[in-house]
């Protein structure tokens, strides 16, 4: 295609287009956004695949994530070591999953990861309590929190182990009418 850009090779751009839901222009724009998070850290030339990571604190200050109560968890779920420092690959991956075109199943997997605060592959009661407190900014009384978490587990838990496994979560979220429209970040 026409424009000469030196950030990526053409093969790299094609590979990114195959692996994400983004078009060429969007990938270049994403790189621009990534670069402006930490201009001295992120090189402009990615043709030899440099290995640099932008720290968590800079990423959660992006305007798209700034107001999200789960921003730390989102960034941590997409980082390799769970510490929240994202390389460009992971950065693109994050926005690709959160984009409009990602299918429901893929979003459900990552939503499960995000809400799993203690990273044990189950949404146990503590995870639910933390989620609820973030959502309501701790405005609910402890009894109300307890009630809501119990009701949630009662509604969604299929195998009766008092916590939500991925299958329970997926079964519940696949019927939610709002899930696709709310679990969406536009960049």
């Amino acid at each position, binding site marked *: 295609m026409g424009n000469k850009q030196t950030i990526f090779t053409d093969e790299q751009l094609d*590979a990114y287009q*195959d*692996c994400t*839901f983004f*078009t060429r*222009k*969007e990938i270049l724009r994403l790189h621009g956004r990534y670069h402006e998070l930490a201009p001295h850290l992120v090189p402009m030339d990615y043709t030899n695949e440099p290995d640099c990571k932008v720290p968590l604190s800079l990423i959660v200050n992006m*305007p798209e994530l*700034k*107001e*999200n*109560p*789960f921003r730390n968890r989102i960034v941590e779920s997409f980082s390799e070591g769970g510490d929240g420092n994202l390389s460009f*690959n*992971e950065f*693109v*991956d994050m926005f*690709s999953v*959160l984009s409009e075109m*990602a299918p429901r*199943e*893929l979003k459900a*997997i*990552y*939503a499960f990861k995000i809400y799993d605060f203690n*990273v044990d*592959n189950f949404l146990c009661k503590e995870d*639910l309590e933390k*989620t609820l407190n973030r*959502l*309501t*900014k701790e*405005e*609910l009384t402890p009894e*109300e929190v307890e*009630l*809501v978490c119990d*009701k949630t587990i009662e*509604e*969604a838990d*299929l*195998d*009766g*182990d008092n916590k939500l*496994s*991925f*299958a329970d979560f997926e079964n*519940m*979220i696949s*019927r*939610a*009418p*709002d*899930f*696709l429209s*709310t*679990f*969406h*970040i*536009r960049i």
Partner: protein
Amino acid sequence: MEALKEQVEEKKKLVATLRNKPWRMKRRLDVLKEAQDFVEKFEGALGKGKGRRLYAFKVMMAKKFIKFKRDFENFKTACIPWERKIKDVESHFGSSVASYFIFLRWMYGLNMVLFGLMFGLVILPEVLMGLPYGTIARKTVPRAEQDTAMDYSVLFDFEGYCKYSILFYGFYNNEKQIGLLKFRLPLSYLLVGVGIFGYSLMVVIRTMARNANEGGDGADEGDFTFSWKMFTSWDYLIGNPETADNKYASITTSFKESIVDEQENQKDENIHLRRFLRVLANFLILCCLGGSGYLIYFVVKRSQDFADMDNADLSWFEKNEVEFVMSLLGLVCPPLFETIAELEDYHPRIALKWQLARIFALFLGNLYTFLFALFDEVNEKLEREKIIKNETELALAHYYANYSSFYNTTDVPPPNVHPADAIRGPCWETGVGIEFVKLIVSDVQVSYLTILIGDFLRAVIVRFLNYCWCWDLEAGFPSYGEFDISGNVLGLIFNQGMIWMGAFYAPGLVGVNLLRLLSSMYYQCWAVMSCNVPHERVFKASRSNNFYMGLLLLVLFLSLLPVVYTIMTLSPSFDCGPFSGQEKMYDVVMQAIDQDLPAFIGNIFTYATNPGLIIPGVLLMVLALYYLNAVSEGYQQANTDLKKKMQAARDEEKNRRNNKDSTNQVMKDLEDLLPNKSLIPRPIEEEPPLDVEKVSKPTKTKPGSSGNGVNLQKEVSLAAPNPRGPVTHGPGPRGGPPLNTRGPQPGPARGRGRGGHPRR
């Protein structure tokens, strides 16, 4: 060889679904590279033998096609306008308000295609290849009107030069073929008119089908209340701190409400009073609807009388009465319905549905009353036309008679009358077209004024008067307005309905609408960002986006009806428009089939319209409907049965776990007795799918994770099989002689006798 081909195909499929896999990016990139290398290496090898070149050619074409598709997709996304604007609105107001603007943008795309069709196939040929202005009667302003034809007020009413331009039906000539290309304009006009509906229908249904896949599969309302609230209530699009605060507050309120609902039953106060109030409210609203319908009919009738009077005597108000009244009704009635609905005391979501249904009924009633009144006018015009037609024929006959008797020849040239002086009939189609255009224009004016006054002026007053007012204007009475999503979406849908109806009589209407949508986008975006505040409570009217699409489909059918009626039943004017001179408008198609297409196609059509063929066809469709309905009912039944089974299994599991402690102890005791054998069978886990092909249940990449299948524990029941140890040795020898005489060892017999006891 075959296996290799299969592998190559597999790798290709893998590459196509790569983005759906929940892997780390690095892994995806590596797998991609590997798959691509594999395919390249072996694809060449596969094309050995006879079909080699063809195979290689096919492969190359496939690659080029993929590249072309990707470039086209890139180009398409680059063309989508207003992404930044919509993103701004989304981050400030959340996804529900932004959905209106996304709908507006979609409408704009649809109208652009319709305009392209109309412009390219009807307007442009007439302009380029048809006769220019002033050459024939229908294209010229009549002598009587010529001095006022350029006045601004006349143009504003779409009379004068506007009326005799490409905007309206009357301008088009009925020559069968025009210009060098022998372009068949009348046929094209008819086909485009019908094609507009066909294309719109196709697009709406395609969008509905796409949305239907996304919507949840109809879980009951109360099944997952808390879970959904917990996991899907936060809108990830929000990027504005004020909106975020609002959202936190609304989520907290919503949780508190659900908790209250859960904890106590709603006491049902006086149910009779409530029923009476609801009946009363519905009665009042029906009165309102009836009243508004009658008002419109009355006003349209009056406008016909005004049309007979001299134009100069009428005030602006009287000239534009119809449009003014219709827009006013559309403005005043919805808030009125809302206030009456306070009597009913419904849950907000149900109240919203009722409100939408009533507004829909209002708009529909208004539109159809308007149409009926219009058609009365049309019939009147047709009557008048007959008289004029007779007059002109009489005048022409006189002229010929005089001429031939005077000059004594039979070769009579056509009368030399200037086009502006010719007698012309009342072109009813142009009249209808003008009415529609005036309606749309006044609709636009009213809606823009409403936004200006209702939102902007209100915001300015609240902001600046707040400094010197007794109570807090911002928190109290007027405060800032909220964006009325459902009202605006309904307005858009009905506007589109009017365009569909009017496009046949006024080809320029689609272009006018395009301009309107464009300006609407910018204007409303500005208004919403500067004058509105985010909603406090958000209630979606329905579960899926298909609610508004369904309304649009309904409106499409309803606007199809008048147009089809006129094409089939009413006769076109005899001296204006592309169908002048025909008995009915569709005669153009019949003529084209008879004269231009080969004979057998005409035969096919004659057979196809035979009732003997149509009635069995209709019967067949009815039977198919009945069958499909029965099948779908069967599926629903199976669905509910499965749900019940799942529920029963869940409850059973829960009971088991609750009783687990007591049984476990018994089991533990038993286990102690038998050191070698464990009674409790091992828990069965589903095999984590190792095959990378499976997309539906992917493996997790975190270390130490088990398979994500449901862990089924085999039930521990007390009625376990015989807790006896394995017989490690056979019975001892009994005695010599009996063994010998008995023949074969009793081993196998023993096994048979016990029947299936496991031997270790």
